[in-house]
């Protein structure tokens, strides 16, 4: 909140104080006094109305649902939804499977974020050292894979890792002593999730590279040179000059990645043909499963709500950073 406080005054001085010429002044001044307070709210009204309907109402409903008993009979209106207090939450939180899902989701998200950030940073730094034409080639591929619809990318990875005809197994089998043809990557949870992680990282790296590359152009050359004169090696320059300058961007990218990777859904869902096995369940698919497969909408909502609460801390960091960057902009 404090970050928000500092952003506003600098960027929005009280409007229209430059004295307009006399002719325009009268009408302008009148509007300034009578309509001024209402105008922004009038402009905002349609947006807020829509968001209230499609966002605020469902959010409130998500909370109320998680305190009710809500299954098929309530959905079709045969029974009214009864309040059950914290029953849904105690059921979820005392369920060992839920904690396994939480752990799996966190491990998956942390792994994805670390790989995304490290690979993204490495490619961004590499971009500064290669010739122009190589840079262009990499950029085209990055933007093209960034633009790939997630569903298409998932479908393509499913094909790459197909057990019998997938090119990945065929390539691995070309190595001496390796016979991978027929190997099913999705037979076990960890291996399958590793493939899904690869897909997520592949899709997320371009955004990180392009944002970091833009940031790298902002790193003052003189600072790097000064550090080098003081005897810093390549790592020293990176650690003590580049990294501190890029810190706000890195914080923003990391928090965004955490939010996205904790919320991974279509990749897992589509990769497992719409029915992820127990070993593949992450928080979002688990909540979906509870609601639409088991038909316990209330428990599904409770799980979704817990997910949102888990992410709240990360969201707070992200928003502070956004507002800080907004100040500089």
């Amino acid at each position, binding site marked *: *909140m404090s970050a*928000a406080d500092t*952003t*506003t005054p600098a960027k*929005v001085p009280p409007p*229209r104080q*430059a004295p307009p010429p006399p002719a*325009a002044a009268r009408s*302008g001044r009148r509007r300034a006094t009578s309509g001024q307070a209402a*105008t*922004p*709210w009038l402009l*905002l009204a*349609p*947006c*807020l109305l*829509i*968001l209230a*309907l*499609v*966002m605020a109402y*469902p*959010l409130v*409903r998500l909370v109320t*649902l998680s305190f009710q008993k809500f299954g098929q009979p309530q*959905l079709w209106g045969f029974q009214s939804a009864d309040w059950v207090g914290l029953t849904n939450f105690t059921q979820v939180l005392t369920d060992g499977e839920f904690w396994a899902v939480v752990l799996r989701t966190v491990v998956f998200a942390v792994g994805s974020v670390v790989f995304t950030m490290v690979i993204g940073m490495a*490619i961004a730094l590499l971009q500064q*050292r*290669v010739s122009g034409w*190589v*840079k262009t080639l990499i950029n085209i591929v990055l*933007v*093209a*894979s960034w*633009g*790939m*619809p997630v569903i*298409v990318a998932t479908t*393509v990875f499913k*094909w*790459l890792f*197909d057990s*019998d*005809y997938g090119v990945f197994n*065929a390539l691995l089998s070309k190595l001496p002593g390796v016979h991978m043809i027929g190997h099913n990557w999705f037979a076990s949870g960890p291996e399958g999730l590793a493939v899904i992680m690869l897909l997520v990282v*592949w899709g997320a790296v371009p955004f990180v590279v392009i944002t970091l590359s833009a940031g790298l152009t902002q790193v003052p050359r003189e600072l790097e040179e000064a550090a080098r004169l003081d005897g810093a090696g390549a790592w020293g320059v990176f650690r003590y000059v580049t990294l501190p300058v890029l810190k706000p961007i890195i914080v923003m990218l990391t928090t965004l990645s955490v939010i996205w990777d904790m*919320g991974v*859904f279509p990749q897992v869902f589509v990769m497992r*043909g*719409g029915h992820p096995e127990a070993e593949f369940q992450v928080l*979002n698919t688990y*909540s*979906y499963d509870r609601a639409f497969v088991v038909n316990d909408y209330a428990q599904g*909502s409770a799980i*979704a709500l817990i*997910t*949102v609460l888990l*992410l709240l801390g990360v969201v707070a960091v*992200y928003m502070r950073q956004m*507002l800080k960057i907004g100040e500089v902009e």
Partner: protein
Amino acid sequence: MSATATAGRRRSRLGWNLLGLLVFVIAGFPLYWMLNTAFKPAKDAIDPDPSLLPTGVTLDNFRRALDISDFWGPVGRSLVVSLSVVVIGMVVGMLAALAISRFAFRGRKVVIVGILAVQMVPLVAMIIPVFLLLNDLKQYDKLTGLIITYLTFILPFTVWTLRGFIVNIPRELEEAAMVDGCSRTGAFIRVVFPLLAPGMVATSVYGFIQAWNEYIYALMLLSQEHQTATVWLGNFTTKHGTEYAPMMAGATMMAVPIVVLFLIVQRKMAAGLTAGAVKG
């Protein structure tokens, strides 16, 4: 001394370039393999030891992809939904963006933080209540229902992005126009609007791509017979297995227009931003 230094630098440049080419090949491989499979004769696609180079070009897989189930219906529905969402999002979003970037008023901070926060709510968490809401409004399995649902993520995105573009246009330009006798609305239409146009185009295309790519809501809120293009791609997997080559043809048809749009906007987005900076 300096000759060896340049030679050394050239050699290290060569090393970096080779590494860069490796990144290019690895990052581009999934795309290449999608295209490669899509144009392959079907019998070569199911080869346990596939040739990495194209083995011949055929359009059979595309024909098969169009045959498997209706393609143009889903594409038409995706177009209707995405275009409506973008138009509504741009009009409503523009008004809101103007309010938060050009007016000082009580509660402005709350609105900004609210719009930022709303973007952070995971879509999947909202499926259950949105499903119930549309069920109550009799909008389940209706395109209108999907359109209003998509506004949950398109609208905050549009407001936030447009705000960024508007903030980059110096206020003095508007003030100068008003000094010259324009009304506030006139100043906006004649001065701000033309400068904002590239940003608006970029934002619209981004929004369009997001709506077009959306999967979960489309899957949940529409029945099989009203499916959209992203859901259509799931039709290649039946209980008899997956027809991969036609599926890659389908994937190509889905991806190529979107990727091309994306490549164009990338540049426009950058151009829009720098144009604003130079004029500022």
